[in-house]
């Protein structure tokens, strides 16, 4: 286990210190985008399409412009004059900023109304007259590939059908051969539904262009402010927005979860509006706009898992159809259109695997965001973990036992997975054993046998996942060509207090505390003496932002290494102060001392003061360091989750009795924060497992676009989570840490699904897609009785 090197007062790694950022939030003094108020600020409201697919015959602005206070109505034709009516997506597709002639999904932005306040802007939006000619929408992604399906993207040169791309990894022929010869093959089509991150703060921005200075300032709900600045410069450079004149500020963010990575059309319209009007323009998304636009998941996965008759896994094959809506706007690393989906071989040791994916256009909103998961890891883990359980049921073996017999062993790390990853470390057996002990697995197995004898439905579900996070090494990972490093810049002031800035951006993860703890660990400066600053592109060093559990793996590592650079400089200063040679100086947290004479010492604060006041001859003054960290590999957190449920036969209602989550995220910086992250992720895991899913009718209308009917779990639906850890440090991360916040979102859905399906298995039910609602369970029970 991890042993703290610092005192609680210094608060380095391993201490559950209270969060430094709490005070402003507790007192209503957070500064979120909607709290920003600039002089002369205008409000923008979008007119949105009621149809999923329609021609726009005309847009009449007159009645809107006649309303006092409405200053402008901006259409696609207005943007076309500047070549801004389309924008590129990160994956080489194109997305409309505002349409000129066609709308491609319900709630797509049609035009923007700019007014002196929100009420007037909404009046204006209602007064805009749009004449649509509705067309037959493609909603089912399988039908999008029909030969007679209308071509949705004739605007794209060479586009002959609605197929976007084909992707594959692994040896298809060999995998097929092994599957064909295997004793046992289990198959299933698994659907991970379209869901939404639904952060409690929606998206928004305040864009302000000063025509005199030619400077653009944008307050933006973004997880990646630096990347956004570069994107704005690339997209709008031709109209005169130059990168040094663009300042993006991500203020306090009310939850991100991947939904605040993309560039949404309304951001661009707001920037265009301030550029044209010369006054600040605020746009704040309302909840329905938020839920209906953007999405995560939406993978239809045909899975085949082959094994020997006693359950040794031999091969896994998965063929996926991905519904991307009308454009591929996934915010993925450039070389990874399907993200890290190839982690789908899971925590098990076998040789053969093949994954392929076909992406299609439909008349749905684009998005494909990495919702609290490192780019499609949730989909991958659900596939393998459901299939492993299905195999266990097929051959009549305990699912825990089956996993133990197939796990990659501790001594096999670094482990080369069949689809090309190099897993850094793990002790899967220990993690599952701990979860089984904590939940009382054997007792529940006995109880289950008794309950089944009484005709009652009780289920135990396991998920033993491996994640891949912390993108990523520059040789493989980039966004728009920019390597996915991240950065830290430390300034230690003469009095020994410090300010550190990062290229990432917290959205609730507690960076102001955990980064300070990393520096406390490395420098011995108390965490309370270190201020952390992120999110302002004018002041913070360049970085790719916070998503994919990458802050600790990348910026956290950068902090450690920058601190070590300072320590090296400090050693020279200490030698100067103590009048010995540098070789005679040793370091222990917070102070330098003379080898063999520990009473002769200088604290880090003494050294910082000397860096400004008593500088060794020839040395550059000051006590500052910066590091840009390019990780040598990704990190591979893992976990074992066990869920116990009871299902009521008469109503289909599901009661989650227990949920135990054992995570292994390597060394832990702040156990309190890690536990909190796991709790939150678990609730975001039960959400799609049992409650959430964006539903469309045949015409492409969203059926549940408000929080009235899109069921975000409350405290009542959310069970009491039980958590624990095993610790297997990452061998390549400077702190041995791995990143944690996404593991629970990835690991919980299959554990819950496996538990419910296990409960229903005596009735002959072998699979249900999530969300597994009481209605779905009831229908399945009726069909099987």
């Amino acid at each position, binding site marked *: 286990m991890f042993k703290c090197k610092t005192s609680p007062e210094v608060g380095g790694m391993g201490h559950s210190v209270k969060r430094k950022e709490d005070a402003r939030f507790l*007192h209503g003094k957070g500064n979120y985008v909607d709290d920003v108020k600039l002089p002369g600020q205008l409000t923008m409201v979008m007119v949105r399409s009621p149809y999923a697919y329609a021609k726009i015959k005309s847009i009449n602005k007159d009645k809107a412009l006649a309303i006092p206070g409405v200053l402008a109505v901006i259409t696609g034709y207005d943007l076309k004059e500047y070549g801004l009516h389309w924008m590129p997506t990160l994956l080489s597709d194109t997305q409309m900023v505002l349409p000129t002639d066609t709308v491609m999904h319900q709630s797509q932005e049609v035009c923007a109304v700019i007014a002196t306040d929100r009420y007037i802007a909404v009046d204006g939006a209602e007064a805009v007259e749009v004449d649509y000619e509705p067309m037959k929408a493609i909603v089912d992604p399988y039908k999008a590939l029909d030969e007679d399906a209308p071509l949705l993207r004739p605007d794209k040169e060479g586009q002959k059908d609605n197929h976007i791309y084909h992707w594959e990894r692994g040896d298809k022929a060999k995998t097929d051969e092994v599957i064909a010869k295997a004793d046992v093959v289990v198959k299933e089509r698994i659907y991970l539904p379209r869901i939404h991150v639904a952060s409690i703060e929606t998206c928004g921005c305040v864009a302000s262009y000063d025509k005199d200075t030619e400077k653009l300032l944008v307050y933006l709900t973004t997880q990646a402010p630096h990347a956004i600045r570069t994107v704005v410069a690339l997209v709008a450079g031709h109209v005169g927005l130059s990168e040094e004149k663009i300042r993006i500020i991500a203020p306090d963010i009310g939850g991100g979860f991947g939904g605040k990575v993309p560039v949404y059309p309304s951001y661009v319209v707001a920037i265009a509006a301030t550029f044209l009007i010369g006054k600040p323009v605020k746009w704040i998304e309302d909840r329905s706009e938020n839920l209906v636009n953007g999405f995560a998941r939406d993978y239809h996965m045909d899975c085949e898992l082959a094994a020997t008759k006693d359950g040794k896994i031999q091969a896994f094959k998965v063929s996926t159809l991905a519904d991307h809506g009308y454009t591929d706007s996934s915010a993925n690393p450039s070389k990874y259109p399907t993200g890290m989906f190839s982690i789908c071989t899971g925590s098990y040791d076998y040789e053969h695997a093949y994954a392929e994916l076909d992406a299609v256009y439909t008349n749905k909103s684009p998005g494909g965001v990495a919702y609290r998961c490192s780019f499609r890891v949730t989909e991958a883990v659900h596939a393998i973990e459901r299939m492993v359980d299905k195999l266990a049921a097929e051959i009549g073996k305990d699912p825990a036992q089956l996993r133990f017999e197939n796990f990659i062993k501790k001594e096999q790390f670094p482990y080369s997975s069949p689809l090309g990853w190099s897993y850094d470390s793990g002790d899967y057996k220990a993690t599952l054993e701990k979860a089984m002990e904590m939940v009382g697995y054997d007792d529940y197995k006995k109880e289950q046998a008794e309950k089944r004898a009484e005709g009652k439905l009780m289920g135990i579900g396991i998920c033993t996942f491996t994640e891949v996070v912390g993108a990523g090494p520059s040789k493989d990972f980039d966004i728009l060509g920019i390597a996915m490093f991240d950065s830290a810049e430390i300034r230690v002031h003469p009095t020994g207090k410090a300010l550190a800035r990062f290229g990432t951006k917290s959205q609730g993860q507690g960076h102001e505390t955990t980064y300070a703890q990393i520096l406390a660990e490395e420098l011995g400066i108390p965490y309370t003496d270190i201020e952390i600053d992120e999110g302002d592109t004018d002041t913070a060093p360049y970085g790719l932002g916070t998503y994919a559990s990458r802050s600790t793996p990348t910026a956290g590592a950068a902090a450690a290494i920058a601190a070590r650079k300072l320590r090296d400089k400090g050693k020279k200063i200490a030698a100067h102060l103590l009048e010995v040679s540098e070789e005679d100086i040793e370091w222990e947290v917070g102070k330098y001392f003379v080898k063999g004479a520990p009473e002769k010492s200088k604290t880090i604060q003494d050294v910082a003061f000397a860096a400004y006041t008593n500088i060794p001859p020839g040395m550059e003054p000051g006590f500052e360091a910066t590091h840009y960290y390019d990780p040598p590999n990704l990190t591979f957190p893992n976990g074992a989750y066990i869920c116990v449920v009871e299902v009521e036969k008469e109503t289909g209602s599901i009661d989650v009795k227990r949920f135990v989550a054992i995570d292994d995220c390597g060394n832990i910086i702040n156990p309190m924060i890690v536990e909190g992250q796991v709790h939150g992720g678990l609730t975001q895991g039960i959400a799609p497992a049992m409650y959430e899913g964006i539903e469309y009718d045949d015409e492409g209308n969203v059926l549940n676009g408000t929080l009235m009917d899109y069921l975000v779990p409350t405290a009542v639906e959310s069970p009491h989570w039980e958590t624990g850890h095993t610790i297997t440090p990452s061998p390549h991360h400077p702190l041995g840490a791995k990143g944690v916040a996404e593991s629970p979102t990835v690991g919980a859905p299959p554990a819950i699904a496996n538990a419910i399906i296990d409960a229903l298995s005596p009735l002959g039910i072998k699979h249900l897609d999530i969300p597994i609602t009481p209605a779905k369970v009831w229908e399945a029970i009726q069909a099987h009785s």
Partner: protein
Amino acid sequence: MKHTISMTINGESVTAEVDSRLLLVHFIRENLDLTGTHIGCDTSNCGACTILLNGQSIKSCTYLAVRADGAEITTIEGLSAEGTNHPIQQAFHDQHGLHCGFCTPGMIMRTVDLLKNNPKPTEEEIRWGISGNLCRCTGYNNIVKSVKQAAEEMQKESESV
């Protein structure tokens, strides 16, 4: 149509001329610049806009400003004196009951009302009691612990009076 309304907000008297349709949450946020009260939905589901009106927690996003004429209102900014914590604020800090902080003011204001009516709630009563407020970050475990701690602290305080 304009109406003149008066109310007490966080102990201060306020008089203003407002449109009939102005929502109380916008009056608080835009007219009074008290931006601690948040807006998270349009359907009074999320509770980020929860305030106290005449001592009772309400969702200010579905309450017209004119209806609050004559009322006594407390928002998160008025819960404790500057530089001090109400026991509920302290408990949320101690128990890590907040991550991004966006739902926190609403959650805290709801808790004030909950504990006033039920000073010793069970875990189940806490969960139902805050079920009108959504949190997407914490998974609620630590919010429940925060409310428990606050209840205990406030109970001690009232016993010592």
